[in-house]
């Protein structure tokens, strides 16, 4: 696997899946495709982790599943975001932003501000 591609942090996959569903129902394959394209090939979702994550979201009732036909008329399982899923996405993305900001602040620091020095 390419070094530049990042492994997903634990828990982030759920947010990404929820996000990918906000414009409408998708099946599993197009979710991987969506994440790869939007992250410009940086985030690669492995099938071995995607499907269990999807099913867990389904069993926790954040997404609803439904059988439909794909673009080339194959039977596929589509996932749709429901109300609780939408709320979950909102919460998780706020949390994620706060986390990213905090990490960025630490990494962007120019000098060490220790309590001893302040005193």
């Amino acid at each position, binding site marked *: 696997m390419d070094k530049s591609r990042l492994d997903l942090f634990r828990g982030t996959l759920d947010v990404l899946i929820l996000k990918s569903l906000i414009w409408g129902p998708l099946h599993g*394959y197009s979710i991987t495709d969506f994440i790869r394209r939007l992250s410009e090939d940086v985030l690669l979702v*492995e099938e071995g982790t995607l499907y*269990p994550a999807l*099913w867990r979201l389904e069993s926790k009732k954040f997404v609803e599943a439904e059988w439909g036909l794909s673009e080339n008329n194959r*039977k596929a399982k589509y996932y749709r975001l429901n109300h609780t899923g939408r709320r979950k996405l909102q919460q998780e993305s706020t949390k994620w932003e706060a986390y990213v900001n905090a990490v960025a602040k630490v990494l962007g620091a120019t000098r060490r501000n220790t309590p001893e020095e302040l005193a």
Partner: protein
Amino acid sequence: MKKIPLWRRYARLFGPDPAADVEDELRFHLQAKTDDLIRCGWPPVAARREAERQFGDIRAVQHIGEQLGVKMERRRRFNDYLVECDRDIRYAFRSLRNNPGFAAVAILVLALGIGVNVAVFSVINTLLLRPLPFSDSQSLVWFTGGKSLAAKVRTAAGLSGQTYTVDAYEEFKRNNRSFQAVTAYQTFYRSIQYKLTGTGEPRQLAAVEVADNFLSTLGIQPIMGRDFTREECQKGGRPAALLSYFFWKNQFAGDPAIVGKTVTVNGKLVTIVGVLPASFDFGSVFAPGMKVDIFFPAVMDFWRTWGNTLAVIGRLKPAVSVAQAQDEADRLFPHLKVIHPDWYEDYASDLTTLKDHVSGKLRRSLVVLWFAVGLILLIVCVNLSNLQLSRAATRGKELAMRRALGADRGRLIRQLLTESLVLSLAGAALGLCFAFAIVFYIAHQGSMTLPLLASIRVDGASLGWTLLIALSAGVLFGIAPALKMSGGNLQTALKDNASGMAAGRGHERFRATLVVSEIALACVLLVGAGLLLRSFLRILDVDLGFEPDHAASMQVDLDDGGKFAARGPILQEILRRITALPGVESAGIADMLPLDRNRSWGLSAVGQTGSKDRDSAAFVYLVTPGYIPTLGMHLLAGRDFAWNDTPESPHVVIINEAAARREWPGQNPIGKMANGVEKNPVRVIGVVADIHESSLEADSNPEVYIPMTQNPDAEGATLVVRTHGEPRSLASSVLTTLRSLNPGQPASEFRPLRSLVDRAVSPRRFFVLLVTIFAGLGVLLAALGIYGVISYSVSQKTQEIGVRMALGATAGRVMRNVLGSTLRLTLAGITLGTVASLAVSRLIASLLFSTSPWDAQTFVVMAFALATVAMGSGYFPARRASRVSPMRALRNN
């Protein structure tokens, strides 16, 4: 996403399949990937392989998916189930609300049935199932002496024949290997008077003397203070007392500093060393009907010379069974007798668990009660089945419609059962209130001599039992109607005006069966109650040998200053003053009254040379002149005692017929000499008719009456007063008179003699009352059932009756028809019930008193009574039928 075409929707026709879903989903993924790769120029075979490689371990993912899928499916099904249940319950409530009359009757009937069941269960739970209120009570064993005596002799000896001497108790305690502890209490507690003075009026105490290890063996710890010390139980030890909780609360207002204070009992200062817990009720276990105020240590050296006075209780060592202990006792007691040739008897004993001793005798009665309420519950179920079925006619169409709309039969049955369960649970809730009331009433019948009475309550086990019988009743009465109503032909049911001749007839036959079984059950109850009631009346009719009405008794504090010679004049003066009171007919004093407590000594004719084991026990009563006529006893021959029978004059006794029969068979006992009563032979001067001295149900035993003026061994003194009118009005003047002679006379109750008889029959009265009430309830319910069925069939046949009347049938004819069908059902039920009663009544034979279990009179009377009630309840629908107006009946169609 496009919608799946219709035909593909049937992929899961045979129910959900999570495994196949997962497989389909992953296959789609691989195909989409392969398609993409092919579009990028990969050759198809390689593309497929690449897609699979990228996916990784497809098996593992599939496995996770299947597990999650199964879990979700299960949850979904459970949710569906809950939703359906919820809907069923709502529906049940709605349909019951639409039919409030039915709901009210059903719930009330169920509440009665369940209420009496729970109440009886609570009694049984306390008396039979729950362990006694002592720690590890299963290992407590009760000793009943006199095993080697013949049964008749044993009862003749009364308490004296079943208790132990101090020596026997101590020797057994020292030598046994089966018990970790053996303890005893003094059984003749009512023979000694304990008078509390110094706190207001002198007061008679209900006291029991217990061995030093009595409380510790039972596992009772004082809530305040301490147990008796060994020193306090020795001769000359410091006088000490333990208070019962209730006495502490009532007499000392729960004084928190009571321990260490002294009270004056019988003129001696006694230190209160502790207070016992409220949970320890000596009376309820060992002496039903008695409330003990205070406990004193039993000083064994004092009691050593008093003969058989101790009741013995042991606590088994762990892993020793009662049978093993019995085995040891069977060997040890005779062995001890060999070592101590001076012992009067060998004390061979029957060992039972304390629990058996306390409630064993009640087991059969309680089982009969349980059986009776079980029958009531059955009748209730039959009744409700009937009521449910009578709704079938109106609901048949609704149910058929539901089936036509796709509900399967199981679903309908479930819905109907839900309705039954809702009813039965509502009935149980109301029934529980009834049970609480009944149990409260029973537990507060203080004068009843039933053990553990005060601790009867509706507890967790009773609640569990309530739930159990409510659920089973719900299923029991719901299942048959549910099966009947959910089945049947859709078409006929849906068709208009198909109040369904075919289905209706089937229902009717079923309902008739129900009614017949209901009458049969009620018949069994009624016959059982009838037999018990007849026994009870026979007991009340027993000739007691004395006259309990217009007489009352009061405990007298006999203070002769320790000089026996002074006793005669004191007694004479008391009786002279009492007899002089207006309204008093006569008076006498005895140390013990019949049906109260008793003791026995030996009595044998001089010159009698029987074997040593010969029964020579006789109940002993020390009495004053005038007591025998005052009690209403019949002097058959000879004379009563007189005041000139003094210690110096020749010693005399009066015996009863039973004693005369035993000792001087075929001879005139007057003037004969008897041994055993005193050191020297005494002369028999009179014979009285037998009286029931220990129980109304048992035969009289030999009795001997000894003048109180000649024998100092009186165990207390009880004044008996025969009055012209109601004795109660004399209570205060009698007490004042006694006080004027002896200021130390404690306030004590003026008890009508009738109360002794009432006390003696109280357990049976209670039992018969309950059984009679239950039988009445059963008959009432059966009557309700008959009424329901007949009136339903009349309303079903209105049209038919109308036609008949139009064709010339008279009202009387119609009425006779309806009553005829009632009679047929009733006769069938009574026949069946009588046969069942013949079998059942054998089970209660041992509870009957001079009544045969096949007492023809009872059977006939009860069958007739039941038939009358049944015909009565059939009469109203019959009258309604006879008033059907033919025009209206025909036009309504």
